[in-house]
């Protein structure tokens, strides 16, 4: 077995075990709601400016690109529909999740890895408490709670960004824009987009904690672990997006 294969299997096994431990300890007392609230503030509230800025920018760029392309065919009226559907189903969840991975995933890994290096994780264990309950579960839950909400905000702001460009640059009526958006986006679009982010949150939080807890070679390893966590989460989000999109299409087609 090559070293690379061994590392991959180690990663898959380690993450599966960690996920199992999280599921096992999730509802076991004590629940540490205070730690969850701290993490919601840290990973959720503080991510709002970054994610909304990116969403606004992407929405504006999309409207502009669609506008330039569709104007040639006299199809500018379709801009609201295109921006809304693509944002709600794909771009909102993907961009929100990638930004979240970069900011929150990196933050979790570096923080947890530093705690390992300075023996704080050992201290948690030595004092008769569980690092899974104290460190991992609050962070995983905070990500699962916050990312879908951030995605919902990102969708709204992204579509709004499209409207700003539509009305200022492309001479589309703002009222018409919103009317078309509301007429186009159905609940299923919205749920499939936001629903994916629950999985993306797990793709970010679990590897981030795993790499943090398994940091090697002291402080030098903290940077390596952080890079790996962000790269892994990004790949899992992008690859997982295909399968989740397919899954949501299948679920929708059953109705």
């Amino acid at each position, binding site marked *: 077995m090559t070293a690379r294969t061994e590392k991959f299997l180690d990663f898959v096994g380690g993450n599966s075990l960690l996920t199992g431990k999280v599921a096992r300890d999730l509802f076991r007392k004590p629940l540490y709601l205070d730690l969850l609230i701290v993490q919601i503030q840290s990973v959720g509230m503080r991510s709002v400016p970054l994610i909304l800025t990116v969403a606004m920018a992407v929405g504006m760029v999309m409207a502009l690109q669609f506008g330039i392309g569709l104007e040639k065919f006299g199809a500018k009226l379709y801009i609201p529909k295109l921006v809304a559907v693509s944002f709600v189903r794909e771009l909102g969840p993907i961009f929100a999740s990638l930004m979240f991975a970069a900011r929150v995933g990196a933050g979790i890994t570096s923080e947890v890895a530093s705690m390992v290096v*300075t*023996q*704080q994780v*050992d*201290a948690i264990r*030595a*004092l008769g408490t569980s690092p899974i309950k104290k460190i991992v579960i609050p962070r995983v839950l905070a990500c699962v709670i916050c990312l879908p909400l951030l995605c919902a905000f990102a969708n709204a702001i992204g579509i709004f960004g499209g409207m700003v460009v539509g009305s200022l640059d492309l001479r589309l009526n703002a009222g018409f824009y919103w009317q078309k958006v509301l007429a186009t986006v159905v609940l299923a679009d919205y749920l499939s987009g936001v629903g994916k982010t629950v999985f993306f949150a797990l793709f970010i939080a679990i590897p981030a904690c795993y790499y943090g807890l398994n940091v090697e070679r002291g402080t030098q390893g903290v940077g390596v672990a952080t890079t790996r966590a962000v790269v892994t989460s990004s790949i899992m989000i992008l690859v997982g997006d295909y399968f989740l999109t397919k899954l949501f299409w299948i679920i929708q087609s059953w109705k």
Partner: protein
Amino acid sequence: MEIIEVSHFRKRFGSKLVHEDVTFTVNKGECLGLLGGSGAGKSVILRSLIGLERPDSGKIVVEGIEVTGRDESELIDVRKRVAYVFQNGALFDSMTVFDNIAYPLREHTDLGPQAIRDRVLEILQTFNLQGSESLLPAELSGGMQKRVGLARAIILKPDVILYDEPTAGLDPANTITIQNLIIQLKSTGVTSILVTHDLDTALRVCDRLAFLENGHVEDLGAVADLKEDPIQIMQLFVRGKSD
């Protein structure tokens, strides 16, 4: 009465065999010093006593409970009764001194906020740390960090205390302060193991000394006997420094 029993302890890290066959016991109320060169695996033994490391083979019994082979949740009881004092304090850097020391009380007792406050302030006074309760670990000196780590470790009044290099990197005044605190705790009947490179501390604080070398306990003897034999002390000192 034996409180700690380590028998045929074997531990390997990758290709490096750190311990081949380590066996020793510690009696109730006794302080055993573990000496040895850097990399001799002194801390590995200490960590294994509360399940932070798992031996490849051998048996560890602490207060009648076999530690080896138990999972994390089963080790909680042992960890409440056996305190571990980390070399660098291992204080939670996001918490104040007060919260660090109160941590075990909040986790393992039903004490209310006022009772916790009283207990923490009392122990801060014992450790000469009054007025530092609202400071963060980063704002403390090395000596203060060690004392806070010690205070946090003993606040649950453990039966056994494991000290990992408690005086490493300290100036002589702080070293004596820590030595006195260990002697004070020992006088209350606490059983302890002290890992150290500092022979002065070992001779002052411990009842017996074990010298680890080549994966075994090479020498094990009473400090009182050693004190009568300066040549043996010199040998221990030289061997301790040789690495």
